């Protein structure tokens, strides 16, 4: 394992120190927690957004804290959901009396820990609502199973629900628009190489020199299918195809996100994007806005995901409105 770290068991605390040191004008850490909040938190009478999850997905989630997006990010151990007490600290730190909205990615751990925190908060009289993001079409969507994972599409939820709250939306309105994003966003990912959690020191899986893993998550879990490595065009076809199979985007307008998982150069993301745009154009799907870069990573995994969000006028306006989060400036 080759990493720029000190104590592999202290990476999250060390990271947070360096993070708030980088952006002291906009972020602060709640003392003795792994919670990062807006410098001006709590913002009175604004619905506050709290998200988070395991660390290792940077810039998610702390990079999305800022006016127009999140009020707090709760940073768990690497790839491990944060504990309820930490989420509760975040809720208390940002509550501005208009209620707190939780953006949760659909993993058993995240859901349980955030829900327990919500119970603690409600017991103290704080109004809490939530959305559970499950955009990953690689996983079957079934009520009898854990269901779909939340991956890069979550960033659209942060952006759009954050903008709604910023514009004075009520807790119900914020929830309504977040639900709308979740209903309209789909993602699909693939990997060329695994990643190594610092505390474990071992690669998450092994792939031969000519193999790729399709339907990968963002925690180094194995994907749904192992295949011979393909060209960028074929990968674009496969990822986009799976998304379009899942939801009908015909004659709609979309936001596209081509997300790098960690070590895939931007060059390759742009090459992939070229083909994604061609595919959408062929199908008569109009692209309103495109995001190419690292938005939801999996440490130094090589690979990418494609996300499509179907837009209406409300979503477009909220997507375009100002954000001051360090990792998502609009």
């Amino acid at each position, binding site marked *: 394992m080759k990493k720029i770290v000190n104590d592999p068991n202290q990476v999250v605390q060390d990271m947070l120190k360096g993070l708030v040191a980088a952006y002291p004008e906009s972020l602060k850490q709640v003392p003795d927690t792994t919670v990062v909040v807006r410098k001006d938190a709590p913002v009175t009478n604004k619905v506050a957004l709290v998200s988070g999850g395991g660390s290792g997905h940077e810039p998610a989630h702390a990079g999305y804290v800022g006016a127009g997006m999140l009020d707090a990010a709760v940073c768990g151990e*690497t*790839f491990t*959901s944060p*504990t309820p007490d930490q989420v509760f600290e975040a809720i208390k730190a940002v509550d501005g009396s208009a209620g707190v909205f939780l953006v949760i990615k659909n993993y058993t751990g995240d859901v*349980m820990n955030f829900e*327990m925190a919500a119970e603690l908060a409600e017991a103290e009289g704080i109004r809490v609502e939530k959305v559970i993001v499950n955009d990953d079409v690689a996983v079957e969507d079934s009520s009898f199973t854990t269901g779909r*994972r939340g991956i890069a599409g979550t960033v659209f939820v942060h952006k759009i629900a954050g903008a709604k709250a910023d514009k004075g939306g009520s807790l119900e309105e914020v929830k309504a628009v977040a639900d709308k994003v979740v209903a309209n966003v789909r993602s699909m990912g693939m990997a060329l190489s695994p990643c190594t959690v610092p505390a474990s020191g071992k690669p998450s899986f092994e792939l031969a020199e000519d193999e790729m893993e399709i339907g990968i998550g963002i925690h180094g879990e194995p994907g749904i299918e192992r295949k011979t490595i393909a060209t960028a065009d074929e990968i674009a076809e496969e990822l986009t195809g799976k998304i379009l199979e899942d939801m009908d985007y015909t004659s709609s307008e979309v936001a596209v996100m081509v997300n790098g998982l960690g070590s895939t150069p931007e060059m390759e993301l742009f090459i992939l994007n070229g083909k994604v745009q061609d595919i959408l154009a062929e199908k008569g799907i109009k692209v309103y806005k495109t995001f190419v870069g690292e938005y939801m990573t999996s440490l130094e995994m090589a690979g990418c995901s494609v996300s499509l969000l179907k837009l209406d006028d409300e979503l477009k306006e909220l997507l375009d409105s100002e954000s001051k989060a360090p990792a998502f400036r609009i």
Partner: protein
Amino acid sequence: MELHVAQALMWIERTNEKIQENKEYLSALDQAIGDGDHGINMARGFQAVIEKTSSSEYETVSDVLKDVAMTLMAKVGGASGPLYGTAFLKMSMSTKGKESVSQEDLAEAVRQALEGMKQRGKATEGEKTLIDVWTPVQELLEQSEDLQPEEIKKTAKDAMEATKNIMATKGRAAYLKERSIGHLDAGSVSSYYLFESLANVLEEGN
């Protein structure tokens, strides 16, 4: 068969030893069909538990279990943190006010723990989770009179091993569907350590 504060503490210590010794093994099991952190999570949690309990004085078993619950809840994270946290919290509540814990009390405590975990995890038996170990152990405690600790160990072990052939429908392993078959469930193995340690402590106490 009776559990006092000293034995409750010893139960937790033995469990911690097992977890620390098998940290890598638990992570490797989780790696195969999950995200490879179960050993790290449990080791971090039980390390903190031991630090807490070894520096505290306890009057009742319930108090011990409560500290275990709160510490696990605050230190484990992931899926297993809230589940084990809930389990110990329910056991603490169920044994509240009791000077010592009989087999009957334990059966009731484990029943409530299991209920709590099922609710928390929206899970039931047969989904390749730690529920699959807790369920038969709970039934054993409830049904057998004059139980031999050895039986707890055997029941937990068999149940743990049986998770190998189950297809996961809850937890991360569910993403793999059929591919999850043929691998042990990591959480079931850590639950087996918990009951194995309990049995050992009960045996010594006899």
